[in-house]
Structures are given as C-alpha cells and as structure tokens.
C-alpha cells in the first residue's frame, strides 16, 4: 500500500474536515464543556456522525457499514483531533467495533445497527490502575450456572456512564501479568451488581470508575473465546492505539497550525515574532516531529489493514511517536503564545489538555517505547 491517500481517501478527508470544522469546531467543544454535560459529548452530533457514515466505517458492508479500514478511521480521527470534537467515535466505532468483529452473529446483530445509526455508545472497561497495563487484569470472572460472575474494579472507562454496553476484560484463568486466561465480556449498562462513579477529566471528558460486584452474565456475553481474550484484546488495543495516535496527529497539527498562525501575526520589538530565528528553528523542528508521527501512524494503519504481522510493532511505535510529537506541539504551542496561551479563552490550552488525556489513553509513549524494545528482543 502506498504511503499516500488514494482518491477516495482524499475525498473522505475533505468531507471529514469540512464536517468537523462546521459542525464540531472548538466552540462546540466549549459549549458542552461549559454546560457540564454529564456525557461530555452531544448525542445530536453523534447522530450526525452516523448520517455522514462515519459510525459504521469499520463495520463490514454486508452488515450495513462502510467496510473501510484503519486508514479511513484515522482520517476521521485526525479531524476529530484537530477540532477537539467530542464524540464516542474512537471507543465505539473503532475499538468496540474491532472487538465485535470477533464476536458471534447474535452479538453483532445486537449491536452493529445501533452503532451505525448513532444511537449506541460502547465503553471499554480494561484499565484497573492509573497506568494502562492490560496484562495485569485482575478482575475475576468465575463460572456461575451456565454463565459467569464478574468481580473487580475498572477505571478510566471513557464515557462509561453514557454507554449502552461495556466491553469488560476479566480473568477466567491464570494470574495477574499473564496474557493467557483473559476473557472479554459484553456487559449491558443496567446489569445488576455494577455501579459507576463518573468523574470529569482534565480535558472535560467524563470517565467512569466501575465496580463489578458479582455481576452475572450468560455464556453468550463472551466475546471471542474463553481464556483467549488476549487475541481479541490485542485487536481492540491495536485499533484503539492507532486510532488514538491518529487523533493525536490531529491534535498536534491543530495546535501547530494555530501556533504558526500566531507567529505570523504577533509583533514584538517591532517585528513579527516569526522572524526570530530562535522560534523559527523550534517551529521547523516541531514540524519535522509531527511529520514523522504522521508517517509512522499511516504505516501502522496500512499494516493493520493489510493484516501484516508488523502491525503490532508499528502500532506501538505510532502511539509512542504521535504521543511525543503531539506533546511537543502543545508545549511549544503554549510557550510561543506567551501569556495569552495561559488563558482559558484561548484554544491552545484546550489542546494541551486533550493531548495529556490521549497520551494516557491505551498506554503512554513510554509504555509503547518499552513494547517496541520488547518486540525488538531486548
């Protein structure tokens, strides 16, 4: 696959860019933030995502979706990132859809239509500690009747309290730290024994702490195979990580463009500040870092779409590089704005907050650099 967008992809990019810019720009984000909206996103906008066809982008065509790949999902996510458009797209339409693709016919038929129509939101209940360590899953799933009983605690479940269903990673065998013995479950929102504590995050998203107190599910709730949840989880995480990386390319680019515009306007010492070489060099360096991030994200998406075994390595590199570059972009961006960058009125701070959350989501740059090292054999 070439490392440039084809005609269809370019068209998708144009329409996604146009759509986010007009329907969900940063003013939209502020509106929902300032309302203290309990979901942290607009259901109306989510319906509009559906009208655009975005919601079913990864769902196979014969099941009502667009049947496209990670490159296309990434195109949408980049624009989401650039405009800070709040939506359940990454968790629901990318990560959860990837999970459901490994599920049986019944479960697909149960959830795909609602995702496609923009009515359904799905949350991911994976993390159990402040840092993302999926192999450390301790949440227990014990056999009970012809189903399972889940006990444990989850956190950083983004939009968890707004979700119709949660994908819960739990341990059916083995012990903490082992990748075998995990199983994934689809748990519906009103399941008895599940309680939620939604908390607002620095980027105004709402994430839930979840208590699973002997939550009963039937055997039909299992996604993939019992004890082999890791293979599905790997797909969910690869999709989520490249997705988050693509969104960070958008966040970083949005912040960078804003900053470059500012460098061309703001005057000090009788000059436009963009004339100062000290700033020019930092700007050019930042641009290079963002370009590298963009490339490795595209490469990872290509590999995932091709089913190439290098997908996992490149996904780790993509999440790490996009994280580092986006973080540089928001930090340089804020600094180059001077005092105005510290004000709530100015958008650069919003980008900084979003970057922090996305960097943490699905594992930060250090976690993924460590994975690169491990996969490279050291």
């Amino acid at each position, binding site marked *: 696959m070439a*490392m440039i967008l084809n005609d269809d992809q370019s068209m998708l990019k144009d329409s996604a860019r146009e759509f986010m810019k007009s329907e969900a720009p940063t003013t939209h984000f502020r509106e929902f933030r300032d309302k203290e909206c309990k979901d942290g996103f607009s259901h109306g906008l989510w319906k509009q995502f559906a009208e655009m066809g975005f919601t079913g982008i990864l769902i196979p065509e014969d099941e009502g979706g667009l049947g496209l790949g990670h490159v296309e999902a990434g195109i949408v996510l980049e624009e989401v990132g650039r405009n800070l458009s709040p939506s359940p797209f990454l968790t629901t339409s990318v990560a959860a859809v990837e999970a459901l693709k490994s599920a049986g016919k019944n479960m697909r038929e149960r959830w795909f239509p609602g995702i496609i129509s923009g009515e359904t939101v799905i949350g991911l209940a994976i993390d159990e500690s402040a840092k993302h360590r999926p192999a450390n899953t301790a949440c227990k799933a014990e056999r009970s009747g012809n189903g399972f009983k889940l006990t444990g605690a989850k956190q950083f479940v983004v939009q968890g309290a707004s979700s119709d269903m949660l994908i819960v990673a739990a341990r059916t065998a083995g012990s903490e730290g082992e990748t075998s013995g995990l199983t994934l479950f689809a748990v519906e929102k009103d399941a008895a024994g599940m309680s939620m504590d939604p908390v607002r995050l620095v980027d105004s998203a709402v994430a839930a702490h979840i208590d699973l107190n002997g939550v009963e599910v039937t055997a039909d709730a299992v996604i993939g195979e019992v004890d082999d949840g890791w293979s599905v989880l790997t797909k969910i995480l690869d999709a989520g990580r490249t997705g988050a990386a693509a969104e960070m390319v958008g966040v970083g680019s949005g912040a960078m463009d804003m900053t470059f515009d500012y460098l061309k306007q703001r005057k000090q010492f009788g000059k436009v500040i963009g004339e100062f070489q000290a700033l020019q060099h930092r700007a050019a360096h930042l641009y290079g870092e963002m370009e*590298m991030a963009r490339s490795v994200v595209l490469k990872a998406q290509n590999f995932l779409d091709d089913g190439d075994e290098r997908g996992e390595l490149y996904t780790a590199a993509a999440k790490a590089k996009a994280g580092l570059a986006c973080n540089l972009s928001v930090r340089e961006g804020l600094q180059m704005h001077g005092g105005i960058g510290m004000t709530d009125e100015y958008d650069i701070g919003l980008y900084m907050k979003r970057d922090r959350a996305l960097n943490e989501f699905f594992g930060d740059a250090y976690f993924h*650099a460590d994975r690169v090292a491990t996969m*490279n054999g050291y």
Partner: protein
Amino acid sequence: MTDLETFRSETRAWLEENCPAEMRKPARGDDDICWGGRNVVFQSDAQKQWLEVMAERGWTVPDWPTEYGGGGLSRQEAKILRTEMAKMKCRSPLNSFGIWMLGPALLKFGTEEQKKHFLPQIARGEIRWCQGYSEPGSGSDLVSLQTFGEDKGDHYEVNGSKIWTSYADKADWIFCLVRTNKEDKYQGISFMLYDMTNEGVTTKPILLISGASPFCETFFDDVKVPKSYGEGISSVVGEFNRGWDVAKYLLGHEREMISGMGGDGGTASLGAGFKDVMASEPVLRAQMALFDVDGLAFRSHSERFMDEWKSGTGHPAYSNLMKYIGTELNKSRHELVMAMGGSDALEWESEASKGGSKARNWLRTKANSIEGGTSEVMLNVVSKRILEMPGG
C-alpha cells in the same frame, strides 16, 4: 504474474548468478566500496567483476536512460532492484558524486551532447568527480563565493580556492562553482566542469577527527578551462551565469542522499544487537527504545517522502527537512553505539576493534549535519519555504 513480479524474480535470479559471494558481505567502511576513477585500485577481483557486470547492465545507475549508460528502469523497477539487493546484502557496485550529484544535475540541465559525453563515464565508473562548492569564506553563505573565472576567449582562467572538497586528491574531474560576474551575486555564478590534472590545480588533504583525510583544500592558479570539449559539449552546465540554479538543484539531491543515512543499514532495530548490555542498563535501554521508535518513524517517513515525491505531491523544499531529521538521527544512533560499546568502542587501532571502526564511524557522523548544508541552515529553509515564516 504481473510484469513487476516477473521483473522481481528475474532480478533475483540474475543477482544470485552474478553477484560474487564476497560482495554480499556488509561493507565495513567507504574503502570496501568501489568509487571508480582513472586511478581506481580494486580491493579484489570480485569487486572489479561486480562493477563490470553491473555497469554492463546499466545497474550502477538503474533509473538513468539506457542511452546514457543507465538501466532504463522505472521507479518501481528500481525500487525492486534496491530491495532485492538489500535482501541479498549485495554491496553497492559503485559509489560516486557523479552518480549522486552531477548526474542528476546533467540530466536536468545538460545538453544532449553533454549527457552523451559525461554520463556514461560516470555510469561505468571511469571518471571520478569531486564537488567544488565551499570556500574558506563561503560555507553556509555559499552564494558569496569568490573563485573567479575570467573570460579569455576560448577559455576561462580560473583563480581561487575551495575547501572541504571531498576526495579532491582522488578525483579526476571537478564540478565547480565559479564566479563569472562580480556585479551580480546570484546570477553571476557558473557551474563549470574541468579536469583536475589541468595545470594550476593543486590539492592538499586535511586530516579529520576520525583520523581519515577524505577531503582537501583545493587551489586554482591560472587554471585554463576550455569553453568547449567538443561540439555541443560546453564546460558550463546550464546557462552561463546561472550556475546557482544548477547548484541548488544538485544540493537538493545531495540532501536527499545524506538524509538516507538515518535509515542506516536497513536493520529494523538498533537495540536488537545489544541485548546483553541493556539487560543491566535500564536507562540506556530506555534511550535505545526511544531511538528505535524514531527509527521506525523515520523509516515510515522516508517511504512516505518517496511516495509523495513520485506522485508529485511533495513540497520542493522537503529534502531539507529530510536531511535535518536523517542526519540528527544518525548522530544519535552512533552516540548509542558508542555507549553500548563502552570501553571496547574506545579502541582506536586494535584488531578487535577493527581498527577503531566504531569510534571512527561515530566521529564521521558528526559531519552529517554540517556537510551539504548544516542543520541550522536546513531549519532556516524549512521555516521560510515550507512554513512560510516571515523575515529575510
């Protein structure tokens, strides 16, 4: 099978048959690769044979047209050839500034006669070229150069000096920037080709920190450069006084070539070679992990750069960014290699250290962000031309 698949399998078979086993071992340094020229000394029969069979097929310059000694391959075919050669670890049959720099400039700016005359000699490795750009007073500010060529009717009389001229002492000919109009800074330079055995040309090697002396001071005292080497074969490439355009075009190629070094050796992971050290050095391991992330990113990035270049969507100044990233990365790579090597890597002459190859290579890479335009100059260009930052 598609045409490209057929090409791939034929290429593989041909390489299998024609590339001597000795030429499939990794080169340890510049000397292991043939640079051609009138005074070439082949390291081995295998090296000579490898050059001959490849030149015969036009594969020393696979994507040049066949009438100029090239292989006439399409971009895709050339890429396949490169990949197959890399897979079989075939060494480059011929390296030269003729191939990397002068050739592309001649293909773009040369007359038909100039191309027919000069390009096949480059392709066959018969003439070795050096690059006469930098002067003692004109480095980054190259356009201020002062080496002067006075019009003397049938020839120019060239006076002045160049510096940092790589391999000037081994080169047969020079492509040289010569001022031909003192009144006009930009449109007063001509791009001249001449023989280094001309009377009045002298070279003096300069010793580098790596212990090698691959470049020279080059002096021109009343050097007579003929205006023509035959019908249509002017000694000036491009228009007279418009050599700056040629020079800049060539620099684009040079930067692209140097930036390729960030991808170094084609190994996916630098860290994979140093497992033992890292097991007891967690901070070093962390540095290495971050380097490998950059390595994978740069590799992806180079691929995107090539694809955009091919499709004509790349920014014309983009090679400056590639050079900046690639060379800085290559320097980091060698810092890590030294750290991994510890005191073993400090040895300068011993047998065990292969004559200090790690230390010497490490020092050599420091030039990457200077030669062909410094990192700071690259950042200037990126910021002005790509980011369109204000100011002169």
